[in-house]
């Protein structure tokens, strides 16, 4: 009986979409392994690379998912990440501030940034897209104002953090030179995963978490049911600001430097991942687990294209879009079928 209920719930509406996403991911990955087996697509490291290369995106997507659930959107995160990296580099290199301090500062800056955007959206009721669009311009411009030129980070502590490998010594593969290779990940991945778990728990098991869904579902009703809609929204954008900065930090661990054009268009990737994971831009529906798979799917698509390795620049663009399209359409079709039932 209980089981039956569980399964029923699983297949209820959006959970159903989530299942589909996960299945599609495994299908895609297996396809990759099948196609590029001899090129070593099956290696554990290839899978881990998905996390290594997308640590920043994971965090950003988690934050974005929350915002989308409230029915809002935040297209400023790309620029905020860029600004964060630049600010980090600038403080450590030009101002000689210690790594720790710099990190704390950028996190604060990000949070404040979120606070301002949140205020404009929640209390002045200005459309999120516009506010965050302005935020996008602002952050990008500030990056240029901090420094037109690229700044490379040479701060040891920071670089140590960046280079800190965690080896899985219990798994061993041999490359063609017969060297033993242990799969590995970096600190950034750990951070990303922890953030993810926290947000998952937060969304499922706290009053605030649930009230976010309520606001997204129907703002008017949420208000009438006695929720403080404004404060909820404000908090969400503040949290997202913080997460954007954190993502920026993780991002910076990879790029270990700052420059004006950094992470341009990142917001789109976050939104795309989140939506592939079954989040609705109309609000009320979404789940970080989905977003996780959204990110992995995006990563896999890129890996497959790299392994394929003969596409010209423009075909790369088109191929990515085609696969993206495939997913989105698939989902909508499944959703339609589900509705019929």
């Amino acid at each position, binding site marked *: 009986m209980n089981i039956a209920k569980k399964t029923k719930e699983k297949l209820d509406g959006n959970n159903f979409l989530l299942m589909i996403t996960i299945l599609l991911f495994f299908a895609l990955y297996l396809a990759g392994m099948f196609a590029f087996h001899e090129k070593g697509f099956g290696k554990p490291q290839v899978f881990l690379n998905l996390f290594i290369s997308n640590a920043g995106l994971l965090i950003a997507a988690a934050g974005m998912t929350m915002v989308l659930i409230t029915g809002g959107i935040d297209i400023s995160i790309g620029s905020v990440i860029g600004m964060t990296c630049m600010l980090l580099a600038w403080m450590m290199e030009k101002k000689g501030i210690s790594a720790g301090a710099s990190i704390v500062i950028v996190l604060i800056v990000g949070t404040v940034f979120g606070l301002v955007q949140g205020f404009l959206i929640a209390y002045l*009721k*200005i459309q999120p897209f516009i506010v965050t669009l302005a935020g996008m*311009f602002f952050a990008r411009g500030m990056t240029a104002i901090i420094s037109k030129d690229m700044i490379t980070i040479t701060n040891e502590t920071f670089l140590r953090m960046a280079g800190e490998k965690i080896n899985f010594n219990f798994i061993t593969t041999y490359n063609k030179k017969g060297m033993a290779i242990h799969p590995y990940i970096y600190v950034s991945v750990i951070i990303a995963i922890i953030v993810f778990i926290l947000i998952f728990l937060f969304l499922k098991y706290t009053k605030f978490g649930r009230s976010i869904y309520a606001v997204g579902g129907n703002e008017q009703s949420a208000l009438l049911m006695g929720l403080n809609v404004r404060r909820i929204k404000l908090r969400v954008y503040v949290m997202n600001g913080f997460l954007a900065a954190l993502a920026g930090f993780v991002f910076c661990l990879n790029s270990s430097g700052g420059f004006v054009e950094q992470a341009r268009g990142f917001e*789109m990737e976050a939104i795309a991942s989140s*939506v592939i994971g079954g989040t609705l*831009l109309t609000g009320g529906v979404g789940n970080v687990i989905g977003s996780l798979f959204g990110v992995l799917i995006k990563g896999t698509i890129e890996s497959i294209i790299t392994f394929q390795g003969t596409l010209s620049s*423009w075909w790369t663009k088109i191929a*990515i879009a085609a696969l993206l399209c495939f997913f989105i*359409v698939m989902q909508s079709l499944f959703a339609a079928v589900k509705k019929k039932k």
Partner: protein
Amino acid sequence: MNRKKIKHITKYRLFWPIVCLILVLLFNLIKTPTFFKVSINSNGVLYGYIIDIINRSSELIILAVGMTLCVASSAGTDISVGATMAVAGAVCCSILGSGEAYNAPYFVGILGALLVAVLCGAWNGFLVAKLKIQPMVATLILFTAGRGIAQLITGGNILYIKVDNFKYLGSTLPHVPVPTPIFVAIGVVILTYLLLKKTALNMYIQSVGINSKASRLLGLNSTLIIFLTYMFCGLCAGIAGVIATSRIYSIDANNVGLNLELDAILAVALGGNSLGGGKFSLAGSVIGAITIQALSTSLYAMGVSADQLPVYKAVVVILIVTLQSPEFKKFVNHQKQKRVEKIGEKVA
């Protein structure tokens, strides 16, 4: 009585957008007194900041018109217009070819471009209206692929068109003192206005945008209407693309209309339109578009470096939308009342 009148004026939807535009222009007048100076230069063309603003904002205006309808009907934005511009340009140039003479008649090139642009719009429309995919995501596909497709057409190289009259569309016709893009923009706006005015489309789009379920029950074909608006948006993007191409008599697939979708959306919002769909004002969007261009042109005029320009743009945008936000007005009124009450207490 007089006060009533003022109140009435401020109620008028376009009041704030217009005020904002005027503010931007006034600011310029103060910073650069020559701002409004318009002269005829040696090759008989109007010359001056104002002309630049209107001329440069042409593409944006055209895009904003299309975008307004998308937003209104589907409560979503078409972020692929920039890419569509590139595709249209690419098609146009590859049809006309970079020889000393056109490979095909001029109008064929233009028509081809517009046709493809409409197809792009139709694709988006299909995804949004028929498959019920969320607009921003649906258009994300073309947003990603578009420039790729454009490069595929051009082979990744910048195609130059050598025939001189190709430049006319983007610059000026011989013996005409006004840049051609301005005419095109005005044309598009007027035609769209008539289309909305003379048919029930205006009411349909709003109805569908506000409540598509109810609209269906009262006999509107929501799907078709949304589909049409996206096709139209594609067409607008196509026109804008051809103009932009003609400006530089070549197709630079990577940069034509880069990030213009954002400005277009911004224009719609600055025009006092809600991105939540429903009621809309075309004029508002046009004003919004001009405001944006006025802003960047004037910032250039002040020698703000292009990479810092966004900061100022952001600040102004926020100021404008804050001015427009009803909540803000409420807030202000409250303060006024409070002050009045305080004074009252003091008196007592």
